[in-house]
């Protein structure tokens, strides 16, 4: 894989007539080391990852995005860092896979994490950032500080756990004593891709880790698992082997499904997310689980609930892929579509594998891309479906391969229906274009974007992430000032209701909403959470220049006004605004709103918190009680992964 945004590729003029290598080839495990011990999977378990080429990669590896720091505190020791630029190492596609060599472990986490980062950059059409640190001592507007590299500790824990720590901006991988030797979570492709995705998602929107809805943490888990899952299917080598293994019985749906589930099982706890894909009957035959639309109303534990989303997206992938390869099978069978017994011709195997890998890549792109079309806070599965459909529509107006139809059908079968929709047609599911009635409201907004347009345009040409970060931070400050000015302008008072409707905010001093934090100037505090300029290449080979702006606002409210002892929570609102930067003036295309003054949503979140209180969480709460809240804030994903 090659990221077109790899900074170093651009910064370094070609020194000789030889262009820089298209990718850094690194050997690794396709799944995890345990599969090398089984005869039927050993052959496919080694593959060569193609990470973006980083010329100046330091021992660690330490590159543009990652720093692998191999300290093992439980053993009290350091391991020497691998130097991937060592000529001996470069010349043989990196170190050979080995469980007993810590340097290979460093190489493996680097390769998989870089692969995942490259997939994100490709899908999003921009460079990714890690979650910024916040320093309250710096002047206003400069408090977010750039974190260049995600830190990866391959041997941080002595436990069957691995997690992303939002505070440390680090991935912590554990190792533990298994029945036949040490098991290293950092050697599992699934786990590394999953944890890297958590970090990337947190870098895009810190609010998605907040647990305000049954779907919040479940979404985080399911999304990370989907990325790991589809990444597997983008490797044609793996697919080829499995397709040829089936000896002509190409019931490809169950084949791929079974494969997906096996990957999950091999890595333990991630299996839970894949259990919804299929099951084994008494005769030990695998078959896909029939979608059950009532299951969503029964599962509340994040992994069990996340499994439903995984199953829904994966089901759509299977259906779409099977439609896509049907013609190949007909071609190979003189039109009958019935494959003869015996081995498949290698050509057919190759073509099937290539097609499937293409479908997988498309789904992977769709899943990641959709993040830009998600609401700013309190995301539900239904919102994600709408984001998937809208994003894909924007990239490709027609749906020639039926991907969107497959998604809608699969989600419907699993009972994932966005709230308030009458039908599940594509037009209904797409976020609506900003309504004409709110013309004045969005006029004010496009005005603001018009003003920051020079900076945004400039940003499209910047390759240095640190410079880009500073520029976008300044642009956020500027946006904030313009918005504030626009809203405190008394002459514009008539515009306010429109503005509120489009942005989901309410910054009027007279809003009277309880729990609102009001600044000294009498205006309610709000935040320009993110500005994301993106260049996207559509299916018709045109380049789309878009700007994603996320505005949020916070109210501190008691969970239950009648029982203040239950504590407070942060109720947030705002909007994800998507602007087209084409043409004379920028235009607001979508406004995905979570109104800060929505009483209905407030009651839903309160009910959710109370329900959780009634269920009493875990044994941990009973024994370690008081410290729990602090602990959850520190490492929300540690507990979710460790005891989930």
């Amino acid at each position, binding site marked *: 894989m090659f990221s077109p945004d790899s900074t170093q590729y651009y910064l370094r003029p070609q020194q000789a007539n030889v262009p820089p290598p298209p990718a850094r080839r690194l050997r690794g495990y396709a799944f995890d080391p345990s599969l090398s011990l089984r005869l039927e999977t050993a052959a496919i378990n080694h593959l060569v990852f193609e990470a973006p080429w980083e010329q100046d990669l330091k021992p660690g590896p330490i590159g543009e995005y990652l720093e692998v720091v191999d300290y093992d505190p439980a053993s009290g020791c350091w391991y020497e860092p691998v130097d991937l630029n060592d000529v001996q190492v470069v010349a043989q596609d990196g170190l050979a896979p080995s469980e007993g060599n810590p340097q290979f472990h460093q190489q493996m986490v680097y390769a998989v994490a870089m692969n995942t980062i490259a997939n994100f950059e490709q899908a999003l059409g921009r460079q990714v950032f890690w979650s910024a640190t916040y320093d309250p001592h710096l002047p206003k507007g400069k408090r977010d500080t750039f974190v260049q590299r995600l830190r990866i500790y391959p041997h941080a824990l*002595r436990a069957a756990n691995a997690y992303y720590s939002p505070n440390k901006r680090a991935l912590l991988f554990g190792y533990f004593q298994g*029945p036949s030797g040490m098991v290293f979570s950092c050697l599992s492709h699934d786990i590394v891709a999953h944890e890297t995705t958590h970090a990337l998602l947190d870098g895009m929107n810190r609010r998605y880790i907040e647990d305000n809805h049954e779907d919040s943490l479940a979404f985080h888990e399911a999304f990370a698992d989907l990325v790991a899952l589809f990444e597997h299917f983008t490797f044609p080598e793996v697919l080829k082997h499995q397709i040829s293994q089936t000896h002509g019985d190409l019931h490809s749906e169950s084949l791929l499904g079974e494969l997906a589930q096996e990957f999950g099982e091999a890595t333990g706890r991630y299996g839970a997310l894949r259990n919804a894909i299929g099951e084994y009957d008494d005769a030990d035959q695998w078959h896909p689980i029939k979608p059950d639309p009532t299951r969503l109303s029964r599962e509340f534990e994040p992994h069990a609930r996340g499994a439903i989303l995984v199953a829904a997206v994966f089901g759509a992938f299977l259906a779409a892929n099977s439609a896509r390869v049907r013609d190949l099978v007909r071609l190979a069978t003189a039109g009958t579509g019935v494959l003869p017994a015996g081995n498949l011709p290698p050509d057919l195997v190759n073509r099937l594998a290539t097609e499937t890998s293409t479908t997988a890549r498309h789904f992977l792109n769709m899943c990641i891309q959709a993040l830009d079309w998600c609401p700013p806070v309190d995301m539900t599965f239904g919102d994600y479906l709408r984001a998937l459909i809208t994003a894909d529509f924007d990239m490709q107006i027609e749906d020639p391969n039926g991907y969107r139809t497959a998604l809608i059908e699969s989600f419907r079968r699993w009972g994932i229906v966005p709230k308030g929709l009458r039908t599940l047609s594509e037009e209904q599911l797409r976020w609506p274009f900003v309504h004409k009635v709110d013309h004045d409201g969005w006029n004010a907004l496009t005005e603001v974007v018009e003003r920051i347009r020079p900076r945004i345009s400039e940003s499209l040409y910047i390759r240095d992430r640190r410079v880009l970060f500073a520029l976008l931070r300044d642009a956020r400050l500027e946006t904030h000032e313009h918005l504030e000015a626009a809203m405190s302008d008394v002459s514009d008072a008539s515009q306010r209701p429109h503005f509120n409707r489009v942005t989901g905010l309410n910054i009027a001093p007279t809003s009277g909403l309880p729990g609102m934090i009001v600044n000294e100037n009498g205006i309610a505090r709000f935040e320009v959470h993110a500005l994301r300029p993106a260049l996207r290449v559509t299916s018709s080979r045109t380049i789309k220049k878009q700007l994603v702006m996320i505005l949020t606002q916070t109210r501190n409210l008691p969970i239950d006004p009648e029982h203040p002892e239950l504590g407070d929570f942060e109720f947030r609102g705002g909007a994800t605004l998507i602007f087209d930067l084409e043409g004379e003036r920028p235009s607001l295309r979508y406004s995905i709103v979570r109104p800060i003054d929505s009483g209905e949503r407030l009651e839903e979140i309160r009910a959710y918190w109370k329900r959780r209180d009634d*269920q009493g969480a875990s*044994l941990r709460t009973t024994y*370690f009680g008081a410290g729990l809240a602090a602990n959850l804030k520190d490492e929300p994903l540690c507990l979710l992964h460790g005891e989930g």
Partner: protein
Amino acid sequence: MTTARIRMYRHGLGDCFLVRFPKDDGGSFNILIDCGVITVAPNPQATMATVVADIAKECGGHLDLVIMTHEHWDHASGFSVDQAQAAFDNLTIAEVWYAWTEDPENVLGRKLRRERAAKLAALQAAAVALDQSAEPLAVARKERVLSVLQFFGVGDMTDLHNLGAAAKKVGKTQAAFEYLGKRRGVKTRYCYPEKAPMGLRGVSGVRAYILGPPQDEGRLKRSSPTKRGKEVYELASDVQAADNLAAAFARFGAGAGMADGGADCPFDAGLGFYLKHGAAPPEKLQELIQTTWDDPSAVSRRIDLDWTSAAETLALNLDSHTNNTCLVVAFEVEESRKVLLFAADAQVGNWLSWQDTSWKVKDGGSTRNVTGPDLLENAVFYKVGHHGSHNATLRALGLEQMTNEDLVAFVPVFKEQAEKNRWMNMPFPPLVKRLREKTGGRVVFSDPRMHPPTPTQLGSLSASQRKEFNTSLVVDRLFYEYSLEL
């Protein structure tokens, strides 16, 4: 008609129940179920002496049966030499029951005990090591580990400074728990749910069913192995995982390198660099450390203590595994089929297994099938599990199946002592609420600050039910005694 008397002692946070059935010859069959109090309780020795003196007096110096549900201090401390063992020495005791997990002949039982010992050792090592750090996180973790070690008799901070002393304390729990098993002249029985229910000598028409613990490692550990047996990581190597953790904590506490050869470490010893001992790292490593770990602006990104959360996980895991090995007994009266259920501290896996148990029993001339759910359905007395914590009374496949209209629940809990130990939500309010609904308010707490059920709480009962309950309940500072027409 048979009248059983159940006495719940109000001595502190811990279980001690005296159950008496009338013998055919007019005497009473005396059963003691557990006898212990948590370490934070004041004056434990005097308290337990009072309790055991009362037992001796009530039973005329003779116990027909003692049931030792599980090896936790708050259920067994009374048998310790530190507390009231001398008083027990003066009682005649006919028989003691343990769960099959204590059976020296049982392979799985031996394995579980070995694991328990390894985990305890690791936890003690963790507490000792964490005690040497002043980092708030280390302090918090140490306290959490300690709060679970309470169950094994490690109470005060001074125990921590000396591993030998702590080990002795833990040994004391074991010694107290095993006291009767080793005592000469006391018959020991290891109870299996698979075996036929047992009669009580000299009492006709009462049977004791063993509901749990299940002989099923997956259930005991609350994780269900997958159908194809692919995922067996957690089940297979608990002992070694705990040993490895213990070694890590020992090293951490001592600030030592690999004097022990690092057998617990993931890589060959030659591959690691132990910099605390002044060894110079190779150049590339030195550079890496300077630019990352030593970066003054990134100190908060270090991970010195993150791994120690393993001690908390292990503590919880040890506790729930031990609680799942609780001996759960149901006494059934043949004629009325009414059931007294003593759930000890059983947790989810143990409760779930009752759903699958069944026995064939002979009633008069005919044979009938009795299942776990039958026993729940006929329960008229429920000793609430684990001091009323949320996870020791299963809902749908437990409490909701107890549908007898005469159901009464006894909860041995001292809120103040639980909180002193930083255990929150004991008793768990939603459980209390549901218990009150299920029993028509007939829920009795040993806690001295909680009153016996008030007339308002009993409001949903009929006048005769209310009267019957009130006349059947004896309220004393030392105990509650409930008489049950069976």
